[in-house]
C-alpha cells in the first residue's frame, strides 16, 4: 500500500466517524491530559447524560469501533476498561477539529473533577 493509499484509507475512516466517536476521542484525550482515567462506564454515563443513548451496548459498540480502527486503546485495569487515545486517534481527532464537523460537548465525568 502506498502512502497515498494509506492516507486515502485514513480519510475514509475519519469520514465514517460519528459525533459519538468524536466525543470519545475528545474526552479520552482530555482525561489523559488531566491525569484522569476515563473508562467505558464513564463514557456510557456521559452519553446517557447527553441523551445520546440509553444502552451500554451502544457505548461498548462505539468504543469497539474506535478500538478496531486503532484510534483508541482499551486496557483492562483494576477491573475497569480504561480508554486511551492512540496516535492515529489523535490525528483523526485533529482532522475532525480542523474540519469543525462536530461541536465539542462537555463530559459530566470530567466536569465534576
Amino acid at each position: 500500500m502506498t502512502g497515498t493509499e494509506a492516507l486515502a484509507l485514513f480519510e475514509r475512516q475519519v469520514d465514517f466517524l460519528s459525533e459519538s466517536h468524536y466525543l470519545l476521542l475528545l474526552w479520552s484525550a482530555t482525561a489523559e491530559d488531566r491525569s484522569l482515567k476515563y473508562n467505558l462506564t464513564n463514557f456510557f454515563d456521559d452519553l446517557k447524560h447527553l441523551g445520546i443513548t440509553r444502552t451500554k451496548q451502544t457505548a461498548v459498540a462505539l468504543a469497539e469501533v474506535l478500538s478496531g480502527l486503532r484510534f483508541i486503546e482499551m486496557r483492562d485495569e483494576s477491573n475497569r476498561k480504561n480508554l486511551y487515545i492512540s496516535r492515529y486517534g489523535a490525528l483523526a481527532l485533529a482532522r475532525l477539529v480542523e474540519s469543525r464537523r462536530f461541536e465539542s460537548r462537555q463530559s459530566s465525568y470530567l466536569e465534576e473533577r
Partner: protein
Amino acid sequence: MTIGIGGAGCKIAARLDSEAVLVNVSETELGKVDGGGRRLLASLHAGRGQFKGSRKDPAIGLDAYLSVKRELLPLIRGNYVFSSTGGGTGNGICTGILRDLSEEEHIATEDKTFFALLLPYARLESSEFVSNTSDFLAGPLAEAIDSGNTGNIVLFSNSVKFEQKLSEEDFNAMLVDSLRQFFAVPDKNDRLRLLDGHIDHEDFALFLSKPYFNHFTCFDYDAQQSFEKQLAKHPNPLLLPPENPIEALFLLEVPSGADPTIFYDIVEHFTARNVSPIYSVVENPDIERPFISVALLYSRKPAELVNDFNKIAEKHAQAKVQKSLDQYVTLEKLNVNLADEAKAALKQRGDEEGILDILKRIGRL
C-alpha cells in the same frame, strides 16, 4: 376692500368681493380660486426650494408673513380680513398681523380691521386644526382683543357644513349671503323710507370698528312674542353662539302701513340689559311681515373658547392614546448579550484549539 388669507379665507373673500386681494403661500392654491382680484404670494424658501404650502403648520405661515408684511399691513387698514384658524397659512399670517396690530400704540377708528375667522368643527376635523385654533385663540387673538386695536371679530364655525353635509361651495355661499345681509344694513337705511332712528354708513363703520366679537343674525319679527325668545330661537347658525351683549345694533324693516312703534319692545329688551342699541326702523314695501337684522357685540373671553377647543383636543389625544394602547402588542424580548455570545464563541474555538494542544501535551501529535 376685502383681503382673503389662506385657502378658506381666499375662497370666501373672492366670493364676497370681486376685487378681493388674495394671499397664500401656495401659488397653485392662488390659481385655483375663482374670482377675486389681485393675488399676493407670500413666499418662503426652504432648503429644497420654495414651500408649496404651509402643511397645516402656522410657523410656516408666520415666516411667510414677513415676505408680505410691508405690503399687507397698510392694505388691511380699515378693511375686512377673512381667514381660517385651523390651517397653517391663514392662522400663521393672521398671527403675524394680529401681533403687529397689538403692538401699535393707537389705531384710528377708521383704520380698524374687521376680521372674519372661520373656526374648524372640532368634533370632526383634524386634530391639527383644533390644536392650531386653540393656540391661535389663546395667543395672538387674545392679545389683539386686549390691545383694543382690532375692529369686530366674527367667529364663523364649520359646524353647519359638517352637520348638514354641505359642499364647501354651498357653505361658502351661505356664509357670504349671511355677511351680505348684515353689511346691507346701512344701504337699507339709505334706500328705504326711514321711520325711526338711523344707522348711516358712518354709524355702521363705527360699530364695526369696536374690538369685540360680533354675532349678527336676522329673522321675521313677531311683535306679539317676546323679542328675547325670538332672538334665542334664531341665532345665526353659521356663527359661534353669542354671550351677553355689550353693544347692539338692529335694523327693523316693517311692511308698508304697519305699526313702526313695535321697535320699542326691542329697545326695552336691550336697555333692561344695560345696552343702548343703535337702530333704524324702515319701511320695506316688498315684505309682508316685519323683518329684523340684529348684531350683538360681546366680549366672551377667548380663554373660554380655548377651553372648549382644548377639551375637544384633549378628547382627540385621549382617543389616540387609547387606540395606541389597544394596538399595543407585547413583543417577546430577545435577550442577546453580545459579550456573552462572543465569549461562548471564543470558548468554543478555544476548546477546539485547546484539543490540539492537549494532543501535543499527551504526546500523540
